[in-house]
């Protein structure tokens, strides 16, 4: 006789769901860190205005990558990565496959967001920095980057919400996250409203504060 506690679920079942929530956070973090590693070079490659043939190739290569990833559903990316790494004969944990898929996916979107931020810094700032005889790298690090970072905060926080929500797609390759654990408990209890409401509330509790923060940052920036 299980001790029924809240909304008809036992403590063990609740705990199970919360363990899944923990892994959702882990995967989100992985996705954001990996996405940063991929997205930053993408943004730099695409934001570059002039340069030789090498930078042309870089810019359009990066552009093609972004366009490609943005045309593929994340669940399909999950599958491609999942089956892709296993054909090499590797037996990878679902976390690695999901993390890699999140990285590839969020990298493309973050790259696009940050490119916009870099390009939002007025052209005259580049020119002014050039007139001060700063090297191209110095121009970027000391003049452009600090301004671009400020612009980047609201959309980046906003995209964190997307990352957290979209980790739920890892359910397709069987990664144990909040969605997966909720599904398991639902199969066991057959109480979909209770179980998925709890899962939704946990997602909401993670995402909503970030949504609000993103909006606040944006409003503050618009005032400034």
């Amino acid at each position, binding site marked *: 006789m299980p001790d029924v506690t809240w909304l008809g679920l036992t403590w063990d079942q609740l705990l199970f769901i919360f363990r899944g929530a923990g892994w959702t956070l882990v995967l989100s973090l992985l996705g954001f860190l990996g996405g940063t590693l991929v997205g930053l070079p993408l943004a730099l490659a695409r934001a570059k205005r002039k340069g030789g043939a090498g930078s042309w190739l870089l810019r359009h290569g990066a552009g093609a990558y972004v366009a490609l990833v943005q045309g593929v559903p994340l669940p*399909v990316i999950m599958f491609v990565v999942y089956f892709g790494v296993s054909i090499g004969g590797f037996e990878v944990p679902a976390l690695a496959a999901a993390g890699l898929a999140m990285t590839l996916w969020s990298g493309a979107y973050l790259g696009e967001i940050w490119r916009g931020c870099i390009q939002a810094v007025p052209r005259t700032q580049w020119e002014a920095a050039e007139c001060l005889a700063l090297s191209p790298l110095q121009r970027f690090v000391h003049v452009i980057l600090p301004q671009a970072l400020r612009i980047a905060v609201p959309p980046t926080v906003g995209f964190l919400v997307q990352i957290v929500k979209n980790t739920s797609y890892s359910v397709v390759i069987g990664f144990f996250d909040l969605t997966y654990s909720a599904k398991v408990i639902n199969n066991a209890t057959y109480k979909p409203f209770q179980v998925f*409401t709890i899962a939704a509330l946990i997602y909401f509790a993670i995402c909503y504060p970030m949504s609000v923060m993103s909006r606040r940052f944006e409003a503050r920036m618009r005032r400034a």
Partner: protein
Amino acid sequence: MSYEFDFAFLDEYGPELLRGVWLTLGMTAASVLPGFLLGTLCAVGRLYGPPWVRRVAIVYVEAIRNTPLVIQVFWLFFGLAVLQVRIGAFPAAVLALVINVGAYTAEIMRAGFESIPKGQVEAASCLALTRSQVIWGVQLPQAVERVYPALVSQFVLMMLATSIMSQISAEELTGVAYQIQAFTFRGFEVYLVIAGIYVALAAALRLVLLGCATVAFPRRRRLGTPL
């Protein structure tokens, strides 16, 4: 490491894939217009409705935008099953998509309404138009035109999101892919092909929706100005 790519499954499972594409497109087509209408009603309700309508609209938009689609789909699909409501996977998927995309559309449309200069509303009301004539006749057409590119992106994203519907056994493209890989053990190749199909579908949908713009906005057609 050497791996022999094998795309032989394409011959055998071509018709299956086509059926998957068809279902994916069907779900998308069925969801676009209701989703747009729901979102627009929500935006108008939130901006100009009585306080209780505003509150309902805000709760709806925030609840949907801050939880994953998969959870919404599960909640709806398994919930309906418990309530003994059997509407089938396809209608359930469409219902979930409409509810989901409606919330995002609401925010896009709200931004569109808010971007219209106050003078437009003032001028319209000075011509003795009623409040609702101003909203639907003067503000809405301009708002849609202003945010149309964002709406197109949102509906392309929605098309991509249909890929989760095999989770409730609506056998769209991704669901078909799953079955094919289970028979052929060629998961990597199958999903590479599927990814390519989605890229093509996304591009096609974008083109079609942008094509709709030239029909919907005669001004654009005449002036040849891009959106």
